[in-house]
């Protein structure tokens, strides 16, 4: 594909050329306000803010969007991130006036909201094979944390909390698993993968014991392989008195076909931003529901939604709830998008999703001239850039008008290119992506070092950005002084 990204440049008063100046660099205005009932030491009388007309602001953000790359532009195959296209109707649904309810509205006047939340709890429980689902956690990582808090509350109720100090995590797990376990106050026990890229049951036997609170696992795993020994693994953990935790990162591969609950998992989180078309992070509101088996339901966070005997819906505090992770209706509009997406697709649509996700990954892989050491894989695969630095290979792909895959992770594959096209790509887009891989593969080291040449920004100075982060336009003013 011939590709050249827009780049809007402007010369500053100092004669410097900058790409699309910040709003604050184009115009500011100082507003004053003197009358305030708050104490003087808590208030200020004037404030300088960017001040521009609406067309200037609209133009600014449109130009920024032209100078960047998003899922709206084309393929975005970041492996394990499941960057699928979110259909626009979910935004329409979340924008309806009736969705804008006050968090503290009494239950009797929020029946529609509660009914949808209750319905979503049931949808997700069905998808995961879980008995009860909470929608409270405000992000995937918060879901993981909530899951381990439930596990902890369960062990505490059984008088085993002091004894069970460890969470077992495979070496190839997502970084969040280690972080979650540490943040929840557990010691992390890591165990290596077997030669075939799956959990080595013997290595796991050594890692699991009386001190195990939980094993965190994702299936299919990080390199897209199904953990065939999952039942044996579940027995091993359960016999040791531990709980089995499912990381929902790769649920897209299983939708409608296999359920974590049926495999023996006790707790799982759902990455609704990966699997069910709510927006990916960026600091905005998210949701990370978790599902649990019956034995753990009483420990879920407060509040939870239930149906009363007379067909109404209400919030209540589960009997042995470990406490709060959020509050009110959770991030309700995100959850509403999830509900809308699941409703639109239905059982057969969800089943098609996983089929297409797996088919697309396997078709794309078949078109690449790169080694893919582990298989058979499902919704994603990890190719090797061979003798080429994977990050440089990715830079080479940028000039082809696509986003590159995840690079250099997991470490089990040398110079890893972790690729997940998702079900959303057509064959034409997959071919485009395959061409981009081929083009990068044909470039010399010198050509890769010069790439990208067609993007608005070339090599970002990551070092300066990390050492001197400027997180607000105010920092820029300070930096200029």
């Amino acid at each position, binding site marked *: 594909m011939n590709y050249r990204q827009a780049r809007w440049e402007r010369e500053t008063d100092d004669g410097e050329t900058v790409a699309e100046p910040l709003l604050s660099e184009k115009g500011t205005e100082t507003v004053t306000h003197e009358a305030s009932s708050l104490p003087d030491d808590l208030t200020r009388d004037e404030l300088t803010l960017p001040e521009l007309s609406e067309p200037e602001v609209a133009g600014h953000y449109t130009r920024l969007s032209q100078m960047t790359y998003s899922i709206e532009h084309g393929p975005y195959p970041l492996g394990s991130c499941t960057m699928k296209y979110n259909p626009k109707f979910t935004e329409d649904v979340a924008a309806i006036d009736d969705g804008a309810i006050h968090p503290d509205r009494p239950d009797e006047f929020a029946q529609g909201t509660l009914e949808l939340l209750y319905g979503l709890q049931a949808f997700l429980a069905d998808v995961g094979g879980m008995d009860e689902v909470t929608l409270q956690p405000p992000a995937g990582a918060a879901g993981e944390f909530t899951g381990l808090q439930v596990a902890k509350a369960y062990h505490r109720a059984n008088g085993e909390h002091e004894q069970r100090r460890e969470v077992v995590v495979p070496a190839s797990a997502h970084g969040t698993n280690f972080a979650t376990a540490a943040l929840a106050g557990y010691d992390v026990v890591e165990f290596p993968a077997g030669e075939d890229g799956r959990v080595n049951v013997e290595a796991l036997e050594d890692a699991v014991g009386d001190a195990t609170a939980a094993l965190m696992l994702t299936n299919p795993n990080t390199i897209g392989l199904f953990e065939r020994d999952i039942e044996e693994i579940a027995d091993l953990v359960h016999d040791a008195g531990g709980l089995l935790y499912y990381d929902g990162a790769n649920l897209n591969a299983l939708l409608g076909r296999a359920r974590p609950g049926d495999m023996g998992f006790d707790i799982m989180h759902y990455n609704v931003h990966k699997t069910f078309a709510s927006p990916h992070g960026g600091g905005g509101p998210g949701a990370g529901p978790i599902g649990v088996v019956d034995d753990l339901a009483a420990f879920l966070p407060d509040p939870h939604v239930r149906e009363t005997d007379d067909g109404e819906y209400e919030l209540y505090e589960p009997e042995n709830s470990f406490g709060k992770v959020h509050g009110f209706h959770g991030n309700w509009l995100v959850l509403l998008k999830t509900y809308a997406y699941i409703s639109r697709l239905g059982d057969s649509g969800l089943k098609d999703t996983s089929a297409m996700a797996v088919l697309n990954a396997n078709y794309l892989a078949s078109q690449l001239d790169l080694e893919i050491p582990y298989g058979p894989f499902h919704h994603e695969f990890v190719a090797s850039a061979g003798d080429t630095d994977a990050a440089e290979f990715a830079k080479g792909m940028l000039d082809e008008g696509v986003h590159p895959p995840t690079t250099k992770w997991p470490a089990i594959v040398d110079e890893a290119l972790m690729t997940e096209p998702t079900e959303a790509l057509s064959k034409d887009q997959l071919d485009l992506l395959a061409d981009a891989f081929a083009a990068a593969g044909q470039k010399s080291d010198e050509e890769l070092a010069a790439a990208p040449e067609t993007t608005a920004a070339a090599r970002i100075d990551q070092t300066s950005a*990390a*050492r001197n982060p400027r997180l607000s336009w105010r920092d820029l003013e300070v930096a200029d002084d």
Partner: protein
Amino acid sequence: MSFDIPDDLYYTESHEWLAESDGTVRIGISDFAQDELGDIVFVELPAEGDDLDVGDAFATVESIKAVSDVYAPISGTVTAANDALLDAPEAINEDPYGDGWLLELDGDLTDDLLDADDYAAQIE
């Protein structure tokens, strides 16, 4: 590529260096280690008075490529930490055996440390 490995220092397999003077042992990471990590952007150090055992992860060094723990090669009590690194972590890249030192311990060198020749052989 060749790396600077001063003869008068001791080394570990995990790429720390040690220098002893007047009963104080100064510790940092080697030229090879800083090169492997790439541009270092953040450092976390222990506090003065912390007691370290051999093998304790006593510092975290974060580069644009990776976050790595630094392990105590010997036991001892921290007598000084190089707090200048908190604002200028690039000193580890620019001068790993000088301004890029991490901390000083009140402790003794042990027999299992590597000399410059052994360490050079290890990273070859």
